[in-house]
């Protein structure tokens, strides 16, 4: 059994397969939903639902414990990005109060092969990522909000995601974890 798991661990799929599947999803959403804002919302919601499950996978695999400050959290998010997307974003632009930081990706694997047509400039193509971050943080009792500051698809040099800690969800901290 454990041998089988290890094979599963080593099994990495080509990122192109992932990129194209994501592309198919976005295209389908654009077909189904007329409004670009709604597409953004749907992507974020899907990401959230992925995040609340993915966090368990991350915790089980990385064996990481709880975070005592937001800098820990930022490093965990960096580690998770490396685990799941194979890219290592840099963390920068900390706000003076330490509750806001930026994840800067020189290259976002989700947007390989993608060009935004002029008619869809309002589309936040990788919006699912924001949902994933929000969902997974919520499961470890951190309410965060994220948004894109820069997007390579919109002509910026890098993709920058801003993550802001809103509050710690004290009432849902499991006993023994607070």
């Amino acid at each position, binding site marked *: 059994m454990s041998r089988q798991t290890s094979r599963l661990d080593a099994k990495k799929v080509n990122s192109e397969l992932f990129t194209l599947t994501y592309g198919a999803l976005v295209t389908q959403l654009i077909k189904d939903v007329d409004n670009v804002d709604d597409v953004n919302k749907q992507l974020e919601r899907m990401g959230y639902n992925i995040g609340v499950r993915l966090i368990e996978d991350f*915790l*089980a695999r990385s064996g990481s414990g*709880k975070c005592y400050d937001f800098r820990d959290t930022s490093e965990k998010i960096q580690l998770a990005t490396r685990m799941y997307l194979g890219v290592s974003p840099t963390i920068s632009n900390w706000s003076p109060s330490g509750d806001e930081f930026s994840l800067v990706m020189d290259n976002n694997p989700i947007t390989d092969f993608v060009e935004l047509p002029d008619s869809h400039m309002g589309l936040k193509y990788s919006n699912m990522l924001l949902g994933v971050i929000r969902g997974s943080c919520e499961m470890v009792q951190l309410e965060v909000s994220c948004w894109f500051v820069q997007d390579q698809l919109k002509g910026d040099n890098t993709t920058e995601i801003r993550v802001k800690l809103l509050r710690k969800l004290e009432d849902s901290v*499991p006993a023994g974890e*607070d």
Partner: protein
Amino acid sequence: MGIYSVYIVSKSGGLIFQHDHLVPKVETEKTCSFPLDIKLIFENKRIVVNYGQRDGIMVGHQLLAINGVQVTGRVLEDGRDALDILEKPENYPVNLKFGRPKMTTNDKLFLASMFYPLFAIAIQLSPEPKSSGIEVLEADTFKLHCYQTPTGVKFMVICEPSQQGMDILLKKIYELYADYALKNPFYSLEMPIRCELFDTNLQSLLETVEKSGLSNPETES
């Protein structure tokens, strides 16, 4: 070496998964004559031995069958009352079958939700602040190992007191949960886990652990 059962309790305290791995079957049959030298009483919807322990029939064992006819609650399969039969001398000699009472699903749900406040009380009782809850609970016949994930899900393994390497096993079960329960799109969070792949993989993990132990998990993973 032996693992008795595995429990998973959700963040809100509900039992979402239970698996009995190794349940030693204890059943004793005995032909008795009148008057019956075993004192039986009816409690918790079953007939149990109250006093008079002998020939492998222990206090607390449940009456399972009379003359090969199964007893459910206090009535036989054919609707006769078991205690009435045993009171009448003309029914003797009788063959009685006793065994350990089995836990019903309801009992398990009840016990799992009992553990939740116990875990919380342990934290309150701690002389040091920021204590974890119960991680190991030891008795003379079993040991309960509990692992709570940062998201609040509790994994519990009940095993023999001598069983080693349970903390590694718990982490492995967590991995299986992350893989086979949570990645199943038809599984909704906080609901009982009914995923066949999870069951089979857990089963084989438990077997591996029992066979080889987890003495050297690093080479395996």
